[in-house]
């Protein structure tokens, strides 16, 4: 990876001339996540795995319990077998941190703001999902994904509750990140 992906620093990373995006791979697809949503990238090794519906695992950062979930089911995609364990992208969701797991966090890029264009209405209607509404046209066409909108408020709340239940169970030993 290039560009110091590990810690996006919580800043709104819009450059003077462009918009900064984190490029990730999830199954057969590559997406760009606005870095304004991203609070960091972690190795999947930092996540305590759980065998629960939707809740892939848990991690801790600065004493905060962070639920981890995969985007693949929401994208109707399979996890790439070549990815290894993958990465977790920390995003702000409903006032707390959430970890969305991807096959690979690939690169930080900056694109001209004018290169970001909306997806056609026909496509948005066909996909029937929030969080996929625009793309950037530079050397390649990259879909811009808002993972929090893709998940939705209810799912995020469910993940937070599930994480709280899991951490209080005997099956999870607490760690500090």
């Amino acid at each position, binding site marked *: 990876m290039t560009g110091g992906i590990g810690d996006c620093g919580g800043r709104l990373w819009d450059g003077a001339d462009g918009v900064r995006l984190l490029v990730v791979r999830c199954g057969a697809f590559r997406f760009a996540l606005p870095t304004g949503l991203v609070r960091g990238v972690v190795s999947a090794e930092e996540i305590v795995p759980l065998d629960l519906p939707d809740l892939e695992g848990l991690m801790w950062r600065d004493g905060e319990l962070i639920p981890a979930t995969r985007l693949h089911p929401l994208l109707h995609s399979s996890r790439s077998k070549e990815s290894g364990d993958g990465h977790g992208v920390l995003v702000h969701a409903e006032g707390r941190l959430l970890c969305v797991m991807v096959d690979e966090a690939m690169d930080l890029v900056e694109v001209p703001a004018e290169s970001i264009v909306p997806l056609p209405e026909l496509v948005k209607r066909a996909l029937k999902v929030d969080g996929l509404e625009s793309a950037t046209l530079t050397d390649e066409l990259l*879909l811009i994904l808002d993972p929090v909108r893709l998940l939705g408020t209810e799912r995020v709340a469910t993940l937070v509750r599930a994480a709280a239940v899991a951490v209080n169970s005997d099956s999870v030993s607490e760690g500090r990140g």
Partner: protein
Amino acid sequence: MLRLIAFSLDGEWYGLEVSHVRGIEPESQISPVPRAPAWLLGVFNLHGTILPAIDLRPLLGMADRKKNDATLLLIFHWEGNLAALRVDSVDEMYELPRSSLEPQLATGSADPTELLLGQVRVRDRVIGVIDPDRLVAALVEE
């Protein structure tokens, strides 16, 4: 007069009125999108605009077919929007009396009358005339 651009899909002929056609392009890089219905091949960049690439085969009851070197994208518009149909080939433009449009389809494929204005007969061909408005309505119902 009825002015049609005729195109083929697996040996069957269909047409769009010229007034709806914006161009013909060789198929370039189409980016797949997640959760796409069967008819949505993906999206691509045409001169700075993102267009959906549509495969008519699922709507016409045809078998899936991979892109080959000769595949073309027929760019069409409806209600201010642009989209592209993946087609095998594009034939000449036909100019016919509008009275030659017949209401019944007889191409041997699944009967997609909900997509068609009707059909015309030109020499040895039967050409199903697609209505873009009906096509788009069918797509969003999928």
